[in-house]
């Protein structure tokens, strides 16, 4: 494939332009994908951190968890039958510190379970992001619907819900603040969770995420941008190689005339496409990893190597398809055309 490489060397500018476009588009894709993932974590880490299982909401709840109320008797039966199961309630709310500074949190309470911290009455366990706001273990927090006081017992890592830090509180306190006795949902982890329970509607973890109002919309628009960029880069490949091939029709014709196989012309193009794409992707993978390390901590950004590699593979496939489609011209070129055109 010396010929392919020699062309790249001779027409550096052309390939540099293609390379930088691929680099920019793939970098942008990685960043947006990091944001999408970061926002998703920020929005629903509480749910995403749970093992796979089933959530159950009241059938009449219109698939909205804060309208759902699980009958107390039924909850008791379920928790007895499925020992790993837990009943959970979540509501958005506020806590105030000693200086009366207000923090928005997602209050979460659950029946005894390995999945969540066990919190005694008048205690509170907070997401560690609130440390940045100066809250320490032992601080006293208040809520205007709550007669008592919360004592900060500890922090958990990466427990957020609906873009707010989670505050785990005891069930008794929760019932006082929100004046409800029933829990919103029952979660049964593992694969033995039944598909249907009378009077309840079941949701997989993923389906449950989509009942969080902002979650679906947010993820959908970001994912659309990502796939849009991927498709655009595929088209860029196709268009770029198309233009390059058009310029080279005369050359292809003469090469065919002297007996170069069409397959060799294709591999030449593939080699160039691979070379440019791999270099551009290496650069943007590297840079996006650097970005992910230096991104400000308040920015919801989470980009795993796994994601970047998957997207890179998609870019390679798309580039290959784009280049190959444009390469059909090569197949059509008649040697005679070139000779009769006359150039160099």
């Amino acid at each position, binding site marked *: 494939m*010396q*010929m392919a490489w*020699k*062309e790249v*060397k*001779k*027409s550096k500018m052309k390939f540099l332009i293609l390379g930088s476009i691929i680099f920019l588009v793939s970098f942008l894709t990685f960043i947006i994908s990091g944001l999408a993932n970061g926002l998703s974590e920020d929005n629903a880490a509480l749910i995403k951190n749970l093992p796979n299982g089933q959530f159950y909401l009241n059938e009449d709840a219109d698939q909205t968890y804060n309208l759902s109320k699980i009958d107390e008797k039924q909850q008791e039966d379920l928790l007895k039958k499925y020992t790993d199961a837990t009943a959970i309630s979540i509501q958005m709310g506020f806590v105030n510190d000693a200086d009366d500074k207000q923090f928005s949190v997602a209050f979460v309470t659950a029946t005894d379970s390995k999945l969540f911290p066990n919190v005694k009455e008048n205690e509170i366990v907070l997401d560690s992001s609130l440390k940045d706001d100066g809250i320490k273990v032992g601080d006293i927090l208040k809520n205007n619907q709550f007669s008592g006081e919360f004592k900060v017992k500890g922090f958990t890592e990466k427990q957020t819900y609906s873009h707010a830090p989670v505050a785990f509180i005891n069930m008794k306190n929760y019932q006082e603040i929100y004046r409800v006795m029933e829990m919103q949902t029952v979660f049964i982890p593992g694969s033995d969770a039944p598909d249907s329970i009378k009077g309840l509607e079941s949701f997989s973890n993923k389906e449950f995420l989509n009942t969080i109002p902002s979650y679906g919309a947010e993820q959908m628009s970001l994912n659309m941008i990502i796939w849009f960029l991927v498709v655009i880069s595929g088209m860029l490949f196709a268009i770029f190689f198309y233009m390059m091939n058009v310029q080279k029709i*005369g*050359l292809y014709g*003469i*090469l*065919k*005339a*002297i*007996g*170069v*196989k069409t397959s060799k012309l294709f591999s030449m193009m593939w080699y160039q496409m691979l070379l440019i794409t791999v270099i551009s992707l290496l650069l943007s993978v590297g840079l996006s990893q650097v970005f992910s390390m230096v991104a400000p901590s308040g920015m919801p950004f989470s980009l795993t190597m796994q994601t970047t590699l998957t997207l890179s593979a998609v870019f390679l496939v798309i580039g290959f398809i784009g280049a190959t489609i444009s390469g059909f011209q090569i197949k059509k070129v*008649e*040697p*005679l055309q*070139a*000779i*009769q055109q*006359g*150039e*160099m």
Partner: protein
Amino acid sequence: MAIFEIDEVKKSFKTGDVTEQILKGVDLELKQGEITALVGPSGSGKSTMLTIAAGLQRASGGHVMFDGKDMTQMNQEQIRKIRSSEFGFVFQSAHLVPFLTVEDQLLLMLDVAETKMNKKQQKQEVAKVLDLVGMSHRKDAYPSSLSGGERQRVAIARAIIHQPKMLFADEPTASLDSKRSKEVMEIIRNLTKTLKITTLMVTHDEEMLPYADRIVTMKDGLLA
């Protein structure tokens, strides 16, 4: 025996509803090592004749026999193989690969022709042939920095480096001035004579005719 035999070759082109008969049954035998010049008025079908013989387009009828085999009966891949290893081409313009140096152009041809040489032998062969066409001093140059005559000499070197049996040349000197044309013709004549290459050459330049062993004239799709 003739190495190359064109037998009752016909060619017609269809443009819209009109079918035009360009070649009306051409017969021609080429003897090994001879240079045959094909002359005739413009539009009489010389290039069409040459490209059919060279396997660059197909005849509508008749036979093209090379080395005892009928090329009109071969498939695309068989014809490609013959073109790459047994034929050489020179055209009005040199058609060099813009991003390859003079030396690389010739190395490429040796690869395409699948000659059984290692890299070192290939380089020696290239040096030898560049010497024959007087281009050794420009072996690292790119086509864009060569003059028209120099390009054409490289094109000739590319056409014969793999020691083809046949050389097809369509007005190889048309883009050159009289002095350069003669130089190029000298080279073609010397090379084909030493290598015993059979040459079919289209020309409309009277000055080139003395270099041919034989002259045939095309008129209205027939050889006179």
